[in-house]
């Protein structure tokens, strides 16, 4: 699954947001972030894919898409929802028949940290100097 994400995720960032993610070694004790975007893959088992994104990175993504707009919090959440949706869509396509993608959701604050607390990120990236971590559960 990590290798699939390695193939799919950078393409999404490059094509949609014009950003090139650099994979990090990993092992960051406490990855930084303000939002957690989640999608579930439902098949022979259920897998939750979660992306932890700090607000400055979400803002930069939004500004790359819409340079003439000061992004609202709703815009940031919408963009992150779409990001995890595209990652989930790419994953179920690679996993083969029998897998379905659940509707994406975005969490903030305590609720967000409750989802990733105590879990090691599967992959970590540096994107234009900002961190992004991807978590898998299930």
């Amino acid at each position, binding site marked *: 699954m990590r290798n699939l994400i390695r193939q799919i995720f950078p*393409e*999404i960032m490059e*094509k*949609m947001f014009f950003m090139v993610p650099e994979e990090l070694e990993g092992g960051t004790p406490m990855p930084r972030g303000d939002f957690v975007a989640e999608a579930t893959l439902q098949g022979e088992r259920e897998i939750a894919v979660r992306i932890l994104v700090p607000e400055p990175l979400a803002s930069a993504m*939004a500004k790359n*898409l*819409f340079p003439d707009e000061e992004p609202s919090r*709703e*815009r940031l959440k*919408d*963009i992150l*929802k*779409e990001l995890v*949706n*595209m990652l*989930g*869509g*790419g994953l*179920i*396509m690679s996993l083969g*028949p029998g897998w379905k*993608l659940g*509707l994406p959701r975005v969490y903030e604050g305590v609720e967000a940290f409750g989802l990733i607390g105590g879990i090691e990120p599967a992959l970590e990236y540096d994107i234009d100097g900002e961190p992004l971590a991807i978590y898998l559960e299930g």
Partner: protein
Amino acid sequence: MAFNILIVDDSSSIRRLLKKVIELSGLEVDRIHEASNGLEALKVLEREWVDFIMCDIHMPQMDGIEFLKRLREDEVLGRIPVIMISTEGREEIIQEARKLGVKAYVKKPFTPEEIRDVIEKFVGEEFSRDAEPH
């Protein structure tokens, strides 16, 4: 020769992005309508005629496949050509969409150029027979 277009996607960002690409594509546009799911799209179509629809598959309340089925049940609305734009790349879903009359398919993530190329090709094929859209 100006087109009326309906964009159906639960992401307001994707709707805005598609609008921007259409506006920059050089296609003459009368109005671009928006809906965030299939149900809303059906409501728009009760009061507005559109020349073609750009539609996502993965949406809450009524997804793109169900929307297409409902569209095809109607003799008049069923003739509106549809471009699917989705994260959904599974062959069985694409086949189902094609059986339901989808004319073109774009997988997310997309570049603005990919969308523009598909629209140009699609409009050329679908509307070259008619002097003008409806």
